[in-house]
């Protein structure tokens, strides 16, 4: 994605005030029986210091605006999994090392485990659950079905998101290029051969659909 | 205020790792306060003491107080001491430069001078000069009263006044503390003298070694401040000069020293060459009385 686009995309979310505030928008506040860090317990009374961000944020996830009460130290993967119930985004290492948590921010692949939820306001978040369009599988998902891709598949959602990101960047990759664009994801079953077949098939399908 | 810096070692045990650096400032402040208070309370000039000319006979006009070796030791030691304190504490307070090598080399020099000094005092000097005895106590209390403008007969000291002896012993303690721990610490840095042996002691033991090194160093900050202050005090300058040129005048001797406690044997005057050389420099010291 081009520099300028990136800036545009981000500007979208921000009111040009001195400090970014959560955009107050329509959409129900997500169930704050939200799990891991509901911020209850000893940290509940943490006050918001002058100029600091507010906990209540609005996220755009898979095209929907979701209002969530998110502790400032919570990562996107945790918010998705434990507040928005989007458990397709997996945690394999929680250290930006395995790619199981890969999501798209404005169409670009990111490790969901290593970015603050508060940092993605105003950006379009896409998770594995957002690929299917009214019952029709995304070309990447279809490719997986066609190629019988993945073994234990814990890495599959992350790889799928990386493939979607790959197609955005390079709709017609060679096997080598595909491998480089997928090199941010680990598969311990070692199913890389089938994964590359899937990636090539996905490119083929998306070209034919476009 | 924290006196120690502590940390969890790899096994999660809480061990000391060094002295709290805030103590540097504590030492500086205490030193400054001491200087100011002392400067305000104690008069720059003390009434000249009586001189009993009868004691004077047979004495040269110049009496040697410090042998060249002693002076050499004093000034090398002070040089290394300054080098050590600067390389130790400037980086901590934010004035940064590659200090480690200078520091340990200065430390090694200090050790050599100390060794020389020890040899020198035993071989060439009378260590009793440094002992603090009952008479030193008396001298001390009288001296204190005199300093506080009490109407007392200012006592005469032995070769070294008791306050000088006390400083010396404090400095000795601090220096030895820093030197001994410093040598051990060299096993933890890369140097060509000692092999690296990081795990020679337990972490806790190492921690205390670093603490002692720090405390000694910080103590030396205070001692140096006090020492320099006294060295430049007008009424003590003649002693400072004696550390430069080695001798004091006969009058100074008779006025401040008790010949019974510091007997100057015949011919124990300052050597002619030295005297001539020192003559000029001696003047200000002489002129400040009369």
């Amino acid at each position: 994605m081009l520099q300028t686009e990136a800036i545009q995309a981000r500007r979208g979310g921000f009111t040009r005030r001195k400090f970014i505030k959560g955009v107050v928008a329509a959409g129900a506040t997500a169930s704050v029986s939200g799990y891991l860090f509901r911020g209850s317990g000893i940290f509940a009374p943490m006050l918001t210091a002058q100029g600091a961000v507010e906990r209540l944020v609005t996220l755009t996830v898979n095209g929907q605006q979701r209002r969530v009460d998110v502790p400032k130290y919570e990562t996107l993967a945790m918010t998705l999994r434990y507040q928005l119930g989007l458990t397709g985004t997996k945690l394999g290492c929680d250290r930006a090392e395995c790619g199981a948590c890969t999501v798209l921010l404005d169409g670009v692949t990111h490790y969901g485990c290593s970015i603050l939820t508060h940092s993605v306001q105003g950006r379009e978040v896409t998770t594995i659950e957002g690929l299917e369009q009214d019952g029709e599988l995304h070309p990447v998902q279809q490719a997986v079905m066609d190629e019988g891709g993945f073994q234990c598949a814990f890495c599959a959602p992350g790889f799928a998101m990386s493939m979607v990101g790959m197609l955005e960047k390079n709709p017609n990759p060679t096997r080598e290029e595909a491998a480089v664009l997928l090199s941010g994801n680990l598969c311990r079953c070692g199913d890389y051969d089938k994964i590359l077949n899937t990636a090539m098939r996905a490119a083929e399908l998306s070209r034919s659909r476009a | 205020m924290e006196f120690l810096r502590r940390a969890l070692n790899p096994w999660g045990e809480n061990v000391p790792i060094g002295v709290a650096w805030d103590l540097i400032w504590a030492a500086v402040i205490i030193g400054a306060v001491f200087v100011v208070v002392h400067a305000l309370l104690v008069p720059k000039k003390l009434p000249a003491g009586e001189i009993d000319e009868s004691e004077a006979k047979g004495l040269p006009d110049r009496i040697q107080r410090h042998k060249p070796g002693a002076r050499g030791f004093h000034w090398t030691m002070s040089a290394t001491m300054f080098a050590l304190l600067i390389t130790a504490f400037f980086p901590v307070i934010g004035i940064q430069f590659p200090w480690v090598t200078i520091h340990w080399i200065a430390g090694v020099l200090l050790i050599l001078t100390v060794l020389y000094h020890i040899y020198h005092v035993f071989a060439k000097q009378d260590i009793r000069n440094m002992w603090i005895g009952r008479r030193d106590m008396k001298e001390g209390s009288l001296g204190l009263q005199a300093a506080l403008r009490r109407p007392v007969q200012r006592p005469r000291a032995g070769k070294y006044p008791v306050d000088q002896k006390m400083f010396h012993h404090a400095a000795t303690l601090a220096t030895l503390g820093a030197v001994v721990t410093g040598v051990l610490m060299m096993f933890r840095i890369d140097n060509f003298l000692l092999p690296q042996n990081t795990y020679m002691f337990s972490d806790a033991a190492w921690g205390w070694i670093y603490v002692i090194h720090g405390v000694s160093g910080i103590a030396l900050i205070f001692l140096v401040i006090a020492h320099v202050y006294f060295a430049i005090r007008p009424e003590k300058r003649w002693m400072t000069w004696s550390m430069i040129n080695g001798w004091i005048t006969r009058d100074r001797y008779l006025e401040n020293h008790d010949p019974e406690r510091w007997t100057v044997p015949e011919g124990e005057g300052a050597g002619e060459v030295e005297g001539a050389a020192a003559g000029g420099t001696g003047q200000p010291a002489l002129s400040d009385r009369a």
Partner: protein
Amino acid sequence: MAVMRDMIPPFELYQPTEVDDAVRLMRQHGDKGWVLAGGLDTFDWFKDRIKRPEAVIDLVGVEELRGISDGADGGLDIGAMTSLTDVAENADVMNRYPLLAEAAGLVATPQIRNQGTLGGNIVQDTRCWYYRSGWPCYRAGGNVCYAATSQSMNREHCIMGASRCVAVSPSDTAPALVALDAEMVVASTSGERTWAAADFFIGPDIDIERMTVLKPGDLLARIVLPAPWEGARWYFEKVRDRKAWDFSLVSVASSLRVEAGMIQDARIVVNSVAPYPVRLRAVESAIRGRAPSEETGQMAGEIAVEGARTLRHNDYKVALMRNLVKRSIRDAA
């Protein structure tokens, strides 16, 4: 206190949109504050609960720190918050400073390059695993280097520039920037200050707890690529255990100006052999006026490793450094 990992301790979060606000916040919080750029180094520290700032200043919204533009006097200005992907794939960088594009493109993985910033890659902390384990070593304010003992596992550690600490600089872009003679523009409440890339990195002999000149309150705002080294011959190589998500065992970056088959001028920098990117001045002067040949490279390699001091497990770095310096001259294109 029992050791706990993989949970970020709570902190207060600030998201300024202007550099001024950012540096003001940074000064306000001093060493209790933490600047968050891409976060890929940051979150490791936070999740290990070793670094526990009270306030995190997230630069995500500071647009003036992003983007690549033409420099005032030729060259190129790159905002510190520009993503590594944007650096690696920017047409200007690729055409005019391919050395930097290559280096940025070899960092970790696509996701990390998408999120990680050039500034972050430059100022990231060392990866010494003793230090990263939260052990009280010199660099962590303690009184020992666990990596330099006779039994330490120090395959990744340094062969030069050590002073009590033997950790190495992990950055891929740092050597490239030094080789391009880039300038680092540092902002703080007392205005901007510019450093030559070579002086921006400091060794443990000067400050064992920092890897760069940055102190609390200092913000690396942008990187200025100077015109002179535009379009020079270049070479970059990063030797690592894995082809993705790995730090260099040794990396080399070179800029060569060659006229009539002779090296007129050169900047050769090696990283991961010392606590900072090592610029090989002796080599640079030795190869001036010579052809960029195997022989010159061989000679350069030998000079480069003079004075190297190895630890128990990193002797191979001497050979590796020698060979990479050779390549950086022989194979520069």
